């Protein structure tokens, strides 16, 4: 029998809001609105249409703390830096760590700092964009994040600035107690600016369940070019809900590539609003799942204006009992004439017990558009495997070669050579 005295996680999260309220930075009214939205929505359960394959009421069962500060030294996390030459902001359990970060020589036109610092020093620009794009009424986790987030990263690229090195936002989970973390980023790239941003999610000495609810708002102003990457390489105990909310102005180019290499439960919400004319958006993703992992990619491309192009390719290799979901929505609104919108989702199932749920959704309200979507799921092609074996390759190396070839279409879209090499090595190791 259930006891009434047991506090639900939802109530505990709301309680945490009340507790932490005095220490919050930023606009209190936005948070108040967010926590009210969350109180109404709660955590998404089975009946939630957008979360039907991920029952978070079940996934999040447990008791959690909201912060944990281990001492980590730079030499302990050397392998997590990924890029030799980059501007790196490091977050340990959601908290900005200036000692581990490498932000000493930022070029002119670039600001990278923690969110609290941004609210203090760059108030005008932050308030102009913060929580203006990620809608608290649209998603449970956006509401929760907006209410509770106390740290994260602010990146600002000034008008016309072309940033020489990639920016790396590195999030490390390191704990021995269960945690729920809410981190929040704001990236503003002004007119004619260009920047490459890598977000990576990693673990170090993690022995407990860490739930990361990370949201980023990315504003790409007119004629700006942004290359964005997400590398998700956590542990089987990790739960990651990762929202990327993008707003593009006219003639801008935004490209994003999402790699899910490891994690217990990973949910990606990628929402892109094309708010001007002549915009280009590229969305690519690769997910490799195994054991009992659950990886769910939800994307939304919202064509609001005419003459824009969007191109989307998500690929997955699903092994063991893992479950992968792809749900890709494309809206083409009434005014968005001359839209080109393409979407493709391809999967390889390596085991009989794996599951792939794939759902492309096109909603088109304009009449002069070119749109297409396609999806395929299958095993490795037996004829291809045989052809390679007939030339002397072992069955294992034939399969490895074919999986590599399948993944290479997505890896090939990475424009940072060092990152590409890292990914190729990770993927190779995975197929050994």
């Amino acid at each position: 029998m259930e006891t009434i005295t047991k506090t639900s996680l939802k109530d505990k999260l709301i309680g945490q809001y009340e507790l932490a309220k005095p220490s919050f930075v930023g606009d209190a009214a936005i948070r108040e609105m967010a926590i009210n939205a969350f109180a109404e929505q709660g955590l998404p359960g089975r009946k939630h249409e957008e979360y039907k394959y991920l029952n978070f009421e079940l996934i999040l069962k447990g008791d959690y703390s909201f912060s944990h500060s281990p001492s980590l030294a730079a030499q302990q996390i050397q392998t997590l830096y990924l890029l030799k030459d980059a501007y790196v902001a490091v977050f340990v359990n959601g908290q900005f760590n200036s000692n581990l970060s490498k932000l000493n020589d930022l070029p002119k036109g670039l600001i990278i700092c923690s969110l609290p610092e941004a609210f203090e020093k760059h108030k005008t620009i932050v308030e102009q964009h913060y929580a203006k794009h990620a809608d608290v009424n649209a998603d449970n986790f956006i509401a929760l994040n907006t209410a509770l987030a106390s740290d994260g990263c602010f990146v600002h690229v000034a008008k016309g600035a072309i940033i020489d090195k990639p920016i790396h936002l590195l999030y490390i989970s390191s704990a021995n107690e269960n945690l729920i973390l809410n981190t929040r980023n704001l990236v503003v790239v002004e007119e004619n600016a260009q920047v490459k941003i890598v977000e990576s999610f990693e673990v170090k000495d993690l022995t407990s369940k860490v739930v990361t609810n990370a949201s980023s708002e990315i504003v790409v102003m007119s004629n700006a070019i942004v290359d964005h990457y997400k590398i998700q390489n956590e542990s089987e105990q990790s739960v990651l809900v990762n929202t990327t909310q993008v707003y593009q102005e006219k003639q801008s180019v935004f490209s994003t590539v999402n790699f899910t290499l490891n994690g217990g439960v990973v949910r990606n919400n990628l929402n892109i609003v094309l708010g001007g004319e002549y915009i280009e958006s590229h969305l690519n993703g690769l997910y490799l799942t195994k054991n009992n992992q659950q990886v769910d990619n939800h994307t939304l491309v919202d064509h609001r204006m005419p003459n824009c192009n969007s191109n989307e390719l998500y690929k997955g290799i699903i092994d063991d009992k893992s479950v992968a979901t792809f749900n890709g929505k494309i809206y083409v609104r009434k005014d968005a004439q001359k839209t080109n919108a393409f979407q493709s989702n391809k999967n390889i199932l390596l085991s009989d017990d794996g599951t792939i749920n794939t759902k492309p959704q096109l909603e088109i309200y304009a009449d002069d558009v070119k749109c297409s979507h396609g999806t395929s799921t299958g095993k490795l092609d037996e004829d291809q495997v045989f052809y390679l074996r007939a030339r002397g390759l072992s069955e294992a190396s034939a399969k490895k070669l074919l999986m590599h070839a399948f993944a290479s279409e997505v890896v090939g879209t990475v424009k940072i050579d060092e990152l590409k090499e890292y990914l190729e090595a990770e993927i190779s190791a995975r197929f050994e």
Partner: protein
Amino acid sequence: MLLIKNLHASIDGKEILRGINLEVKAGEVHAIMGPNGSGKSTLSSVLAGREEYEVTAGEVIFNGKELLELSPEDRAREGVFLAFQYPIEIPGVSNINFLKTALNEIRAYKGLGPIEAKEFLKLVKEKQALVELQGSLANRSVNEGFSGGEKKRNEIFQMAMLEPKLAILDETDSGLDIDALRIVANGVNKLKSPDNATIVITHYQRLLDYIVPDFVHVLYKGQIVKSGTKELALELEEKGYDFIKEEVGA
């Protein structure tokens, strides 16, 4: 080199090969001809190790080894090469990478270390010239977007790179125009040596004008019903397969 004894094979319970006997010695070229559905492609598939075919009786000895006991890759490593009738397209896998992997796995099987990069490139250049294959094709994905002729030339190019002891050409002439046919045949002839052997499987005599066989066998209803020299091929060309059917039927 190759000894096939009373080979029976079936697919989905249907018997296709019904007692094949054949001996191929080093240095020889054998042609296997026959009408559609006689079992020509089944024979090459069984020799290469396609798993959907079930061998129900008989044995195949290749250089003293039970060929049918070996996996497809070990057959290749022992020196059996099948030029596919329909070469498979493999997008995303570069021809060169694939060949390098294949060559190195064959070398490892023989206890040799990986081939040096420089030596490999030299080999590629040399063998490409043999089949008049453009350098750009070698760097593309395996057979992807290749024309029919390019695919067949790529098969012979792979054969040249892997230097098999026994090459089985499965309907290599199908879909080739006369120029491509000449190039492919030329490649095969140049690779011929006293140490290796070739089995040419074909429906038409045409290819045998270019690759001249020492022996010609006629396959019909899963058995070799007639063997002879190259003149037999000419006779078949002239009279058609009906005369065989009549002879066998009689």
